[in-house]
């Protein structure tokens, strides 16, 4: 699995854009319809100069007023058709282009949610966010406009040149000759542009990362008064992006210059050749007027090609960036031939010679952990800060996979069980309880299993009673009841702010809500004050009674909830036993759990 964010390499624009195929395919009819409408509109517009020629050469030149109105009506008809087709083209593209964007975003988001934590550890979140927003917007515009016009303008050009050839082969040839340097220069500039487009998007992602950190780390920045320093860093990145954007601007300016200059030269040449032809009688004046009109008409399609190619490059770079993430294969997935867990789960948790190294790391965090937690037993896990306790707890619900050995639940390797089954059986309370900006109910229920696949408004499997029950167990019912809208109160960043202790109790309620047979609690009491701790402890004791639990503990009080204690040191379990036994026999354990105060008093 490649989890490392790639740094801007560049493939061909068309190859990159081809990967939009699967998303465009379901909407191909309206998109093709839109393209056809655009094409016909353009051709209707192109017909106008021809009509003009017949009017100028015919009735006007001959002073014949009878056919003039009919010809004018023809122009009007074409004009109406063109306006109607332009409306049609845009109407056809409005919904599909936005649907494509939304579908691509949904797929990206779903994919990201299923990529393992290891992936998220390594990718800066700003890079992910910029892919989900900025890049997809670029793609949407390309699908709705630039892509269609690239095709339409190409066809218009071909038809225009065809008309010129039909009017006069010589005039057509003149245009053909100028097209060669034009194409060469344009492609060369486009290639450089697409390299810069990619760079700009990557820099935009880095900028988004700094933005995210500035918002999420605001408390630290305020406390230390480091807003200015971070602003300086942000500005350095922003200046880098500006530099790239300026380069893009200059390349685009050069592209425009080429695309304006060469067609104008072509017109001048046609005037010369045409006038010569008229002087020698091989060309009518009307034909010359028509040829110049056609070329003038082609002015915009040609000039806009530079801009359209630039947009194509932007979209190609965005598509590449999009697929870089989508192409990462989720490493932690359901097994091909899943085994089912016992029903009901007994809850025997065995770690057998478990090794773990973080992806890309060279230091083994866990070096052969052997530990058995019997069904119904509560095992406390103690160890110094950074000894790997949290890492170990993450292996049980497969947030990471072991790099050696195995984690077994009721004798079944957790890698052989469906993720959904495993994570239903094992619930985790994290040390950093992350709240989302949503109601208390949503924050506690989080997944609402089984209310998922069906109708969006399907009933949840958890009633409010269940939620209150879990809150009661976590001693969180009191403060939740006191919130202005109870369970409906929005908490998290966009709502009521809660204290560390309150958040930790909600995390606990989350974990116990499903009545899971196995609980993994990472230091569940660290942020609680003494009173609350006593309450939660009491409640926990009741919960832990019937389930298997692995509890990371830093404090004697938490340790005392456990039946047995395992000591993690240097990546191995060095001692297992009950608290008083270890306290008596193991000096390292004593050093770890006896408090400062005991030493003092």
């Amino acid at each position, binding site marked *: 699995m490649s989890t490392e964010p790639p740094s801007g390499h560049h493939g061909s624009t068309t190859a990159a854009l081809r990967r939009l195929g699967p998303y465009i395919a379901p909407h191909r009819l309206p998109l093709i319809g839109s393209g056809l409408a655009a094409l016909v509109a353009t051709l209707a517009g192109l017909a*106008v100069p021809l009509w003009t020629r017949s*009017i100028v050469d015919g*009735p*006007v030149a001959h002073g014949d007023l009878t056919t003039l109105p009919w010809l*004018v009506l023809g122009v009007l008809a*074409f*004009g109406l058709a*063109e306006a109607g087709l332009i*409306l049609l083209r*845009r109407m056809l593209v409005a919904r599909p282009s936005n649907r494509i*964007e939304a579908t691509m975003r949904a797929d990206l988001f*779903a994919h*990201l*949610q299923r990529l393992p934590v290891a992936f998220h550890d*390594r990718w800066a*979140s700003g890079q*992910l*966010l*910029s892919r989900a927003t900025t890049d997809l917007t670029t793609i949407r515009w390309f699908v709705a406009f630039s892509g269609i016009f690239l095709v339409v303008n190409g066809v218009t050009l071909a038809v225009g040149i065809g008309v010129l050839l039909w009017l006069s082969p010589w005039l057509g040839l003149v245009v053909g000759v100028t097209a060669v340097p034009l194409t060469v220069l344009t492609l060369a500039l486009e290639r450089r542009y697409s390299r810069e487009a990619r760079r700009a998007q990557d820099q935009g992602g880095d900028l*988004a990362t700094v933005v995210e950190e500035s*918002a*999420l780390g*605001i*408390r630290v920045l305020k*406390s230390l*008064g480091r*807003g*200015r320093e971070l602003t300086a860093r942000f500005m350095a990145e*922003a200046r880098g992006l*500006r530099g790239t954007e300026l380069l893009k601007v200059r390349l685009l300016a050069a592209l425009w210059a080429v695309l*304006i*200059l060469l067609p*104008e030269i072509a*017109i001048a040449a046609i*005037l*010369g050749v045409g006038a010569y032809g008229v002087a020698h009688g091989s060309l009518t004046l009307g034909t010359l007027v028509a040829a110049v009109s056609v070329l003038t008409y082609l002015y915009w399609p040609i000039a806009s090609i530079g801009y359209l190619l630039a947009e194509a490059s932007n979209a190609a770079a965005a598509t590449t960036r999009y697929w870089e993430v989508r192409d990462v294969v989720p490493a932690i997935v359901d097994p091909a031939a899943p085994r089912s867990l016992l029903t009901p789960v007994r809850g025997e948790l065995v770690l057998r010679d478990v090794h773990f190294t973080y992806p890309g*790391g060279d230091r083994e965090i866990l070096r052969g952990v052997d530990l058995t937690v019997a069904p119904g037993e509560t095992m406390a896990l103690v160890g*110094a800060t950074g000894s790997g306790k949290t890492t170990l707890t993450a292996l049980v619900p497969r947030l990471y996979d072991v790099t050696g050995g195995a984690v077994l639940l009721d004798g079944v390797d957790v890698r052989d069980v469906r993720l*959904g089954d495993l994570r239903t059986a094992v619930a985790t309370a994290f*040390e950093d309880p992350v709240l*989302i*900006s*949503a109601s208390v*109910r949503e924050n506690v229920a*989080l997944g609402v299993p089984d209310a998922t696949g069906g109708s*969006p408004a399907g009933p*949840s499997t*958890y009633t409010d009673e269940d939620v209150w029950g879990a809150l009661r167990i976590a001693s969180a019912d009191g403060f939740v009841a006191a919130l202005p809208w109870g369970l409906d109160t*929005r908490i998290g960043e*966009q709502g009521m*702010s809660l*204290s560390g202790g309150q958040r930790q109790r909600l995390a606990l309620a989350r974990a116990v809500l499903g009545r899971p047979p196995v609980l993994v609690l990472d230091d569940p009491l660290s942020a609680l*004050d*003494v009173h*609350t701790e*006593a309450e939660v402890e009491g409640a926990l004791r009741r919960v832990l009674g019937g389930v298997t639990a692995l509890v990371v503990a*830093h*404090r004697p009080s938490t340790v005392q909830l456990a039946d047995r204690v395992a000591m993690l040191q240097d990546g191995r379990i060095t001692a297992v036993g009950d608290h008083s036994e270890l*306290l008596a026999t193991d000096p390292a354990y004593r050093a770890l759990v006896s408090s400062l105060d005991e*030493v003092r008093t």
Partner: protein
Amino acid sequence: MSTGTDWRGVADEDEEADVVSTSAGLKLQQQARALVGDLVRPHRRAVFWAVVLLVAENAVMLAGPLLVAGAIDTGVPAALRGDLGPLAWAIGGYAATGIGAAVLRAAFLALSGRVGQDVLLEIRRRVFAHGQRLSLDFHESYTSGRLISRLTSDLDSLNDLLEKGLDGLLGAVLSLVGISVLLIWLDPVLAAIVLLGFVPLVFLTRWFQRRSRASYRLTRTTVARLIVHFVESMNGIRAVQAFRREKRSDQIMDGLSGAYRDANADAFVTVAWYVGFLRLVGNVTLAVVLLVGGLRVVGGDLQLGALTAFLLYLRRFYDPLDDLAQFFNAYQSAAAALEKISSVLDTPAGVPEPATPVALPVPVRGELAFEEVRFAYARATTREILPRFSLRVPAGQTVALVGATGAGKSTLAKLAARFYDPTEGAVRLDRVDLRDVADTDLRSALVMITQDAFLFSGSVADNVAMGRPSATREEIVAATGAVGARGFVEALPDGFDTDVRKRGGRLSAGQRQLVSLARVVLADPAVVLLDEATSSLDVPSERAVQAALETVLAGRTALIIAHRLSTVLIADRVLVMADGRVVQDGSPEQLLAGAGEFADLHAAWRASLA
């Protein structure tokens, strides 16, 4: 539980209304317009030259059809008579206009592109820097996701405008004026017909402006919600996966992304009608001009070449209209974004910098005084967090704040750190009102750390150096050593140079707290405020930190909030708080000896020990 919007729950004030009232809308537009003026002003000269270049380009381009007319009306007849002079002049002139137009256009694009990027850079700087200046109170209600969306998505649509818009809008105005003048000069009668066509265009444009503004405002609020959900899900990925929230979260994203999709599609449809009608007006005008022009040529009032030129100009005017509408559209989208951005910029910093700062004594002694302070959140005036109180902490004293959740400990510390200003009364450091102290002075005199030990991307050393960016490596290592964290840092793959990755994914909560304590040691402030700064440490680390604190805090004023009484016992003085009031005040020994809350707490804690 449905995936409508009830998952979001109810909050005091909803962050932003989807539909803006007319008067509020006008105010927003004014703010946005003032912001644009302010941003563009420094670039007046460049904009002036850009306009000159554009005018020149347009003038050169407009000369084109005239030269074509000249070639046909004068050049060809002359050539037929054997005089090639006029024809050669016309063709040479035309080629020259081509070169001129190309050069002028490239110069214009480069110049306007630079102005655009400079404006963008400046607005990025302003929003970012202002975001850093705004009070915690603002951040807590505005939330990170929305601020992120202001600085990313909203700026993107501004970028779109600057990339395409300057050119389009200026070009449109110039074409309009230039071509009108030329048309009048060529033939006033035909020109009158064209100008008549402008009347419906004005109404059409008004309609478009109104409709699209509403749609784009909606896109800005919906995309912000989408970003909030995205960022929260990515930051909470462990919980998402462990609790099988993926599907539910997908559904929520579908809903949010769908609202954004619909708002955008509505905007698209509005543009579609606009552009369709623009073209209709243009084409009808063309037909009428052709009819009238043809009649006049036949009548001998108009030359054939003049009619040709007229039709060419008309075509040039209406041809880029489709794209001009696109630019106008980008403008509408950017205007909605600018409204959002300008309302952030117009939010006053809740704790403003003093206009005339008062210097703190050198060195800062560190005496903290709360004088008749009362505090209530501005947003919810109904509830008073801290009723009126006075408190003096002499320089060098270590004070522990104890009390149940919600007793007001953190608020008191935040007032001391000037994260908030008191509703009434004053907080003083060395007798100087905090409101009169420059932010840089305050932050170097006083540092607060919370349990939220956020790590920024970069190395461990970079993160410790946040305490004092000018610190040498030796000082960084020494500070880390002082809190007993040197051992674990050196054991990391690259020691102090180890990249903590995003949000320190590799460091445990305890390790992150050690890093943030090292920051304080490095910052070397006279006053230290610790809010649950050691909650995740194991006992030996905590013991090491406490030993370090006893040394580090010597000679400093300190306010410590800790749930663990072992931490409290190193204090010189303990304040027990309940319901926003200090209910007990004394040395730990005094309080232990008494029979108040603290003695009870201590007894409970003793009981919890092994």
